[in-house]
């Protein structure tokens, strides 16, 4: 939590303001997660329009840059069309829980970490699972055919995606010797990334990202929310504010999975050692946290845009193809990566 103290000191406050953890959580969600959500939503729409020879958003602000804000304001004005069922209420609770429980454990730089335990990696992983559970319950609670099918598909997908991605994490843990964020970052350098350490870790990287896409039902592999055959699945009867929350939750899952991937495989937040010691010599720790955060987010955005590129250029996979792919391809490859990493670490 010391980064909040750093900022408070840099801004001229005393470090004894009450409610610091809350301030920290609010800062993370307001200044990191929300802007990232808006940025990626905008880039997704604009770049996919470019890829498909369309225009994309062009009315709101310069080149439609305010489109995410406009979307959000529009959704917040709308009331839900239906009264809430018990299942939907349960989903809301789970959703909010998943959203805020793992905020404290997001790794955003060496100084900007609030919780770092032996099991750090599994906290966001757990929140991704809760998100999948919430989506499933929302679908099953709707008593409509698309919602119900979407719920079943979400359950099947998250089950299929968990297994390979969990093994992907184990490979990295075996390589780095710990599941602590700090230890995982310490095992990498500025350009010395875990995914390039040896071929099995590259395989583990692919498996981890693919498993995450299946688990969270993200763009190319989102059978549980398919528009064409089940009219949007779980999302079909979610409207207005609930839809805003639902979309935000899905984005949050995507974002946190990408941050995890960057920290596990792509050099975490490590900046060149010389730069870091230069900042330390200047006693500018705030600068360190800003530069580290920027570098980490930059890599995260590139990864997300890469995934969205694949998603927009390829047709959506059918739901049975997705689960087949996860169990039949990612699963065995994950085991190969695990065995390979084990041998490589021993030798």
């Amino acid at each position, binding site marked *: 939590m010391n980064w909040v103290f750093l900022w408070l000191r840099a801004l001229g406050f005393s470090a004894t303001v009450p409610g610091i953890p809350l301030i920290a959580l609010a800062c993370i969600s307001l200044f990191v997660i929300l802007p990232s959500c808006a940025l990626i939503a905008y880039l997704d729409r604009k*770049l996919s329009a470019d*890829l498909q*020879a369309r225009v994309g958003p062009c009315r709101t602000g310069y080149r439609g840059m305010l489109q995410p804000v406009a979307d959000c304001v529009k959704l917040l004005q709308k009331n839900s069309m239906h009264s809430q069922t018990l299942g939907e209420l349960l989903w809301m609770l789970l959703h909010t829980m998943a959203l805020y429980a793992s905020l404290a454990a997001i790794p955003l730089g060496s100084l900007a970490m609030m919780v770092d335990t032996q099991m750090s990696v599994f906290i966001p992983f757990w929140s991704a699972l809760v998100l999948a559970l919430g989506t499933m319950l929302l679908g099953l609670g709707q008593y409509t055919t698309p919602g119900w099918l979407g719920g079943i598909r979400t359950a099947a997908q998250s089950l299929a995606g968990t297994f390979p991605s969990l093994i992907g994490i184990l490979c990295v843990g075996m390589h780095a010797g710990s599941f602590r964020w700090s230890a995982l970052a310490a095992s990498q350098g500025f350009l010395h990334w875990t995914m390039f350490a040896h071929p099995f870790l590259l395989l583990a990287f692919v498996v981890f990202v693919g498993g995450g896409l299946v688990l969270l039902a993200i763009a190319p592999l989102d059978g549980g929310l398919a528009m064409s055959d089940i009219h949007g699945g779980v999302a079909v009867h979610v409207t207005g504010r609930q839809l805003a929350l639902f979309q935000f939750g899905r984005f949050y899952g995507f974002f946190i999975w990408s941050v995890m991937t960057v920290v596990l495989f792509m050099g975490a937040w490590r900046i060149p050692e010389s730069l870091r010691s230069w900042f330390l010599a200047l006693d500018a720790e705030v600068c360190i946290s800003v530069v580290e955060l920027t570098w980490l987010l930059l890599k995260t955005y590139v990864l997300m845009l890469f995934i969205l590129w694949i998603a927009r*250029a390829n047709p959506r996979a059918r739901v049975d193809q997705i689960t087949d792919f996860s169990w039949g391809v990612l699963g065995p490859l994950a085991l190969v990566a695990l065995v390979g990493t084990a041998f490589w670490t021993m030798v």
Partner: protein
Amino acid sequence: MMYFRRSVFIALFWYLHSIVKSSLSIAGSCFATLPYLLRIGESRKEVTDGYPDPISSKTADDLPPRSRGLLFNDIERCTGCGDCEHVCPAGCIEVASEPGAHDSRIWVSVFDVDFSRCVFCGLCVDICQPMSLVHTRQYEGAAYQLEDLVASFGRGQVTEEQREKWHLARQRLSAPQEGA
């Protein structure tokens, strides 16, 4: 030996082969979109048009020549044949007709198009023999109530008095002919 090779190694080969093949296909379609992103070449321009309204400074006249707007039926020419009703894939046209002023004339009493279901496929316009049913250039048809989306072009049911008048008129017209 043969059986062994077929069962394990060849199966493994085809398994890896299909993985590599599908990865290459995914990468292929990704790279196929790159020229569009980077705007290389002539054919890479946007294929869509701006929505016609004051912001894009386009009007309904700028719509493509064959664009299909809301439907309009010129009820004077409509023969009430019901072809459009039969051909409509969305089942959103309702036609009812009855005998008109003359035995040779048809009175189209009901002609309702439910735009909440219409997909603007244009089949009804294609099949209309007297070409009474046309697409207009109007493209904005939002309404607050679902019922407001039903457009009625029919002349309405013929009342008994009207029928009586027609009957008398027909008699008056035919009587002098008989006398001459």
